[in-house]
């Protein structure tokens, strides 16, 4: 597997959205076995580790929000982070692209490596880092501009000005986010006119346009209806062939459906981590079991 993100995107075999839609129900039914197979593969370290957190401690002022969290993320896998509100899973996610730097009084200790390089090293520029590690937020946050300009935003920041090149990236990214067919005639219209689900896919497309290696998703479906959620889950499965995805979710069914591995957080600590199939059927920690069976949380 080529580690370069750009060739990843080019290599990506993109099924036609129309055929994908038709297959949706059957694809959904077959997910559990699919996940088991992939999870097993993940356990055997079929793909190399791309992002690795090692003994990450994080403090908001004096309050410790993360306690020595270590997780490796393998290339081309989907990893879910679950746990009750305030357990630190979103905070941990934001460590992976240093979005926590924007929060005043937030201090991170430990190491997070991206392709072997510590992203908290002095020499690392957050601008460069965030080009390689894209992020999708909980609430869709399209920029108040045209759909086309939203997608072209990231490439333009890097100085790409050629309209033809940008146009290609826009189409490629919107197709990648399964939104092209719905918006291809309205690219000049405001992104704020889209529905919630479309806005979130637009945000995914916007992140894809910067051709990242890793995609972080912070509860991307929590503001969406079940049909939009389903679309985004399908999309994530598709994107896995080209990207490494880390998703925070409150929805345990969602974690079970889409992820290869799951990590359970509680009060800033990583309690248990493993293949999703095992986590949701046979967790080894009592607290994990209590949480996923709905006894608390």
């Amino acid at each position: 597997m080529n580690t370069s993100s750009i060739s990843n995107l080019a290599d990506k075999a993109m099924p036609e959205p129309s055929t994908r839609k038709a297959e949706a129900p059957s694809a959904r039914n077959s997910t559990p076995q699919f996940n088991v197979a992939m999870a097993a593969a993940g356990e055997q370290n079929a793909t190399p580790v791309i992002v690795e957190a090692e003994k990450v401690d994080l403090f908001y002022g004096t309050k410790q929000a993360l306690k020595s969290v270590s997780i490796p993320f393998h290339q081309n896998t989907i990893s879910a982070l679950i746990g009750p509100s305030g357990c630190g899973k979103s905070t941990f996610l934001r460590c992976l692209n240093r979005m926590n730097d924007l929060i005043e009084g937030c201090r991170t200790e430990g190491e997070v490596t991206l392709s072997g390089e510590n992203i908290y090293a002095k020499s690392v520029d957050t601008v460069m880092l965030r080009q390689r590690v894209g992020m999708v937020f909980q609430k869709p946050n399209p920029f108040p501009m045209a759909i086309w300009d939203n997608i072209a935003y990231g490439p333009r920041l890097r100085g790409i000005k050629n309209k033809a090149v940008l146009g290609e990236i826009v189409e490629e990214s919107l197709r990648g986010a399964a939104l092209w067919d719905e918006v291809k005639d309205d690219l000049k219209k405001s992104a704020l006119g889209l529905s919630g689900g479309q806005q979130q896919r637009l945000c995914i497309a916007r992140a894809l346009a910067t051709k990242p290696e890793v995609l972080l998703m912070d509860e991307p479906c929590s503001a969406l209806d079940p049909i939009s959620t389903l679309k985004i889950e399908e999309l994530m499965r598709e994107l896995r062939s080209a990207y490494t995805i880390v998703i925070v979710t409150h929805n345990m069914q969602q974690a079970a459906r889409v992820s290869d591995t799951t990590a359970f957080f509680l009060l800033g600590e990583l309690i248990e981590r493993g293949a999703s199939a095992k986590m949701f059927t046979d967790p080894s920690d009592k607290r994990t079991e209590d949480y996923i069976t709905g006894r608390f949380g």
Partner: protein
Amino acid sequence: MATAPAPLPDSPSPVPPKYQPLASSSAHLRRRKLASTLFYLLCFSVTLLSFFLLAWIMSGIFKQGIPYLNQQFLTSFPSRFAEQAGIKSALYGSVYVLCVTAVFAIPVGIGAAIFLQEYAGDNRFARFVQVNIANLAGVPSIVYGILGLALFVRALGFERSVLSGGLTLGLLVLPIIIIATQEALRGVPNSLRHGSYALGASKWQTIRRQVLPIAMPGILTGIILSISRAMGETAPLIMMGALTYVAFVPRGLRDGFTTLPIQVFNWTSRPQVEFQAIAAAGIIVLMTVLLSLNALAIFLRYRSNSRL
């Protein structure tokens, strides 16, 4: 003590209190409705009152001023003969002074607001500056006149010129621009800033491409309010020594000047009745310039809003 597994209640099982809907009595309801109506009438009448007061003043001014408002009035210099008096030098003076004010205060004000809101963070220095700017906005305008006299006219040697007047008014409106711009920047949702950073934007790219365009309508409102304020100010300019009788159009930044409100003030202090009417004509000119500035601002706001 009793060890009965299920102790029998001494009294018959408690009857839940009878459910009583909390309906108002009809008298009470009538009182509430009456209070509602009275409040509505009060609001309506004060609105009407302020409208009529304005209409009364305006009609008085128009009745007096319209007869004198002709091309000759706009193209003549002031004169001690009422029928020859014109407002040309004051009109030009006001426009020149406001240009200096705008060129100085708008970039400095917006820059300071961006620094305080986006860069400074929450430290002691930023809070100190913040409190002082808020205080400056409340300083009487005549104090700015004294400052302008000491700083621009004397210390920097700009004399009693368009430059001194413009800069003095610039200082006067600077806090207003800063506060309005900060307010507009604060209104930009953080989710957009974070969205931009997450795509690998630098701080300046985020401010330039997201924050400023979204804050623009608010910033424009602040600018236009402050320019209108500067336009109507008389005291600081008289304090720093603007001329009251000017029979020429300023040709440069170092020339003496007068402005519309100073000219109006000058005319109203004359004993002759004709000059009262000329002052009214001057007020009409002043208000026309002000209202067209406001119209421009509304147009610009509309345009930057409809960009979305």
